[in-house]
């Protein structure tokens, strides 16, 4: 770097290495290690990474406002290759093994390592009695490594490495109970669905390098400036859309969201860490990271916003009717991610990241709490078999309540601030988007409180043998809950808006990184044009939220028989929603089975045409030809050779008589030579004498 960086900034590349080291340790010889050792090693390594992240964050703050960036390039990964860009200019394709820390990635690593550490601690309690303990933590640390690589990478290729890494780890962890077919199927599903998105992402990277001539984040801005693209340049739109498809795959947006609900087959901490807090938000991070491109592609941004909004609503509607506690949370995750993309789509990238952070807190907390409930009910996940747990497991109850309030968006919990920031932006961008988001907020409040009421209140519907050993979870699980609860309350205050006398420090902090569309640059900070409007919006959403809560109370506490009647009343619609709009079936019918048919067809083709006609035919032909050749060889080629050999043999007969390998005959020859020599000598002597 140009100026000597302070320690932590100079060593950000170390942050991913600690989890990698422990992961390697676990996966190579973790089998022999004590449980306690594994705990210390894995959680400890993540904690060290957290310390480094905090240090890096603080030292980043100490840098001047406008160039808060630190880059460590370990070594040049792919050496520079000159090539022609689309517009004919020559560019050098360079991919370093480089790490970049700027406000955006700083926020990300703080969230990842912080929440990750808490979830590690939680897992030591939750997984205590599971088999393959070391395997679980090895995967978990491997995931931490990949995620940190993803957020710290300084170019698309390295980011893609992390991208694939987290995909792999999520596959491994979803299929952690691999002896359960549903689990392994879910893992495969997640992996395959992600492939689609990843393919698009790769294409996006290629196109980027072809259009902009670089894949370094730091160089994108200059490259855009140099290429002086006008707004809506088709290349950029294409790039943006490809990236967005990648994001939908990783972040479970329509149409690629189907894997996330199934991913709940994995252990609950995994759902909390990967499928709520960190990995699924990678898409949002990536879109924010490339905001500079998006802002030049309004069409793509519109698509993003629409998809996000629709996903939010759609997933929320499915969440309403789910009975599996984790499934409910999964759909809520999808819809919250929809919110984030909505934010990005309307250009409020900072708001998206803000919501990403708060969501990491309360959704992680929700999952962990749900895990605690499941733990307490010894593995029961169906909400219809719960109820009246609030007295039995109070801490879990209160923390989960806090999280619910946060996600529902009650003032002044974290969720309120982030969500209303997004809604405000959406309102200004497009009233329709705002309406969708608004209703989604109401539905969110409804189904979340439905969850609370069904789980903790009303009459107990717990099975009897389960009933009498319900117990609060161990401290190792409760401490993270409490900490996350605190974060869910206070985590949002870092962006306390001006209308409440705050100064949106968080937004200002992120401001230099994300490029904001021209038309709304000026109000980027202070949100909606008129304070009055903003207040009104808040009040409106609060009202709807409260309405949703009341509805949930009415339906699931007051008149518990009512939901069933409603379900019967609107039968086909209910069934439609209950079966998740048959999306899986449709996908099966449209793609999966077609793919299978294609496979079968190809197999048949191989068997019949290639094997039968091609290979066997060729074999037969070869054999036939070789028969002829063999005859030729035997009688003509070999024949001539043997003839020659026989001739030589005949001619060499006298020589063989000499060369018979008997010492004594050789000696005899020596004597003969000696005689000859002496005779010649005498001849000479005779000549000399006369």
């Amino acid at each position, binding site marked *: 770097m140009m100026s000597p960086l302070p320690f932590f900034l100079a060593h950000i590349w170390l942050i991913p290495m600690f989890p990698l080291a422990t992961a390697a340790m676990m996966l190579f010889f973790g089998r022999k290690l004590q449980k306690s050792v594994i705990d210390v090693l894995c959680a400890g390594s993540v904690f060290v990474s957290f310390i480094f992240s905090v240090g890096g964050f603080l030292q980043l703050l100490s840098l001047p406002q406008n160039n808060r960036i630190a880059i460590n390039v370990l070594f040049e990964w792919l050496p520079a290759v000159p090539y022609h860009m689309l517009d004919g200019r020559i560019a050098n394709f360079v991919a370093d093994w480089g790490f970049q820390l700027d406000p955006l990635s700083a926020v990300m690593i703080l969230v990842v390592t912080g929440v990750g550490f808490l979830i590690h601690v939680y897992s030591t309690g939750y997984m205590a009695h599971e088999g393959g303990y070391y395997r679980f933590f090895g995967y978990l640390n491997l995931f931490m490594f990949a995620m940190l690589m993803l957020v710290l990478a300084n170019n698309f290729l390295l980011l893609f490495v992390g991208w694939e890494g987290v995909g792999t780890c999520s596959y491994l962890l979803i299929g952690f109970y691999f002896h359960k077919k549903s689990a392994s199927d879910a893992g495969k599903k997640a992996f395959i669905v992600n492939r689609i998105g990843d393919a698009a992402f790769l294409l996006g990277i290629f196109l980027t390098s072809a259009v902009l001539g670089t894949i370094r984040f730091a160089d994108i801005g200059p490259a855009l400036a140099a290429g002086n693209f006008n707004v809506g340049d088709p290349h950029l739109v294409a790039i943006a859309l490809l990236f967005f498809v990648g994001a939908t795959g990783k972040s479970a947006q329509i149409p690629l969201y189907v894997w996330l609900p199934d991913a709940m087959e994995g252990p609950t901490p995994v759902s909390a860490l990967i499928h709520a807090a960190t990995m699924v938000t990678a898409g949002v991070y990536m879109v924010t990271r490339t905001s500079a491109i998006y802002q030049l592609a309004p069409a793509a941004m519109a698509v993003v916003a629409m998809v996000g909004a629709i996903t939010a609503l759609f997933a929320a509607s499915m969440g309403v009717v789910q009975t599996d506690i984790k499934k409910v949370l999964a759909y809520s995750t999808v819809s919250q991610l929809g919110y984030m993309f909505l934010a990005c789509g309307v250009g409020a990238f900072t708001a998206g990241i803000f919501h990403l952070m708060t969501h990491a807190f309360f959704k992680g907390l929700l999952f962990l709490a749900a895990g605690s409930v499941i733990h307490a009910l010894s593995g029961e996940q169906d909400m219809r078999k719960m109820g009246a747990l609030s007295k039995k497991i109070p801490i879990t109850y209160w923390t989960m309540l806090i999280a619910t309030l946060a996600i529902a968006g009650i003032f002044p919990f974290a969720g309120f601030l982030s969500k209303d920031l997004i809604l405000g932006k959406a309102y200004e961008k497009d009233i329709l988007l705002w309406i969708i988001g608004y209703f989604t907020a109401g539905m969110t409040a409804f189904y979340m409180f439905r969850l609370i009421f069904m789980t903790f209140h009303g009459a107990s519907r717990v099975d009897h043998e389960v009933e009498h050993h319900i117990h609060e979870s161990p401290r190792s699980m409760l401490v993270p809950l409490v900490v996350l609860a605190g974060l869910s309350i206070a985590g949002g205050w870092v962006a306390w808006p001006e209308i409440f006398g705050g100064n949106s420090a968080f937004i200002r902090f992120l401001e230099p990184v994300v490029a904001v569309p021209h038309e709304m640059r000026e109000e980027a900070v202070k949100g909606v044009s008129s304070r009055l409007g903003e207040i009104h919006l808040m009040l409106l959403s609060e009202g709807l939220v409260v309405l949703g809560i009341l509805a949930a109370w009415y339906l699931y506490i007051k008149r518990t028989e009512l939901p069933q009647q409603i379900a019967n009343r609107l039968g086909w619609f209910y069934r439609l929603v209950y079966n998740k709009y048959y999306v899986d079936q449709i996908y099966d019918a449209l793609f999966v089975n077609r793919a299978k048919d294609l496979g079968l067809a190809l197999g048949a083709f191989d068997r019949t045409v290639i094997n039968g006609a091609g290979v066997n035919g060729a074999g037969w032909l070869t054999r036939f030809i070789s028969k002829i050749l063999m005859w030729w060889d035997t009688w003509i080629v070999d024949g001539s050779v043997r003839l020659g050999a026989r001739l030589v043999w005949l001619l060499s007969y006298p020589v063989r008589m000499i060369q018979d*390998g*008997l010492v*004594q005959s050789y*000696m*005899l020859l020596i004597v003969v030579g000696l005689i000859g020599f002496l005779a010649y000598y005498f001849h000479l002597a005779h000549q000399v004498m006369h």
Partner: protein
Amino acid sequence: MIPTEYYLILSLALFTIGVVGVLTRRNVIIVLMSIELILNAVNINLVAFSHHFGSVDGQVFAIFIITDAAAEAAVGLGIILAFFRNRETVLADEMDMLKW
């Protein structure tokens, strides 16, 4: 005083006998012994000449030749023993494969 040529003739006789033995006997041990005989004839020659010219160089060479004979006998007999163990024969004209 015995003229030196008698010694030479004697050594010639021994040499001839030795050569005949080397060339005709089948038994390798006897072949080896004949070789010793030849070396002996050479020694007589050398010593006779050293006596004739009154210098001991010939005797020195004879000593070297005896050394050589010792070495040759040791190695040759070692070979014969090894061969006998593997082939159960000591006949020269059965050792005609030039390899083990």
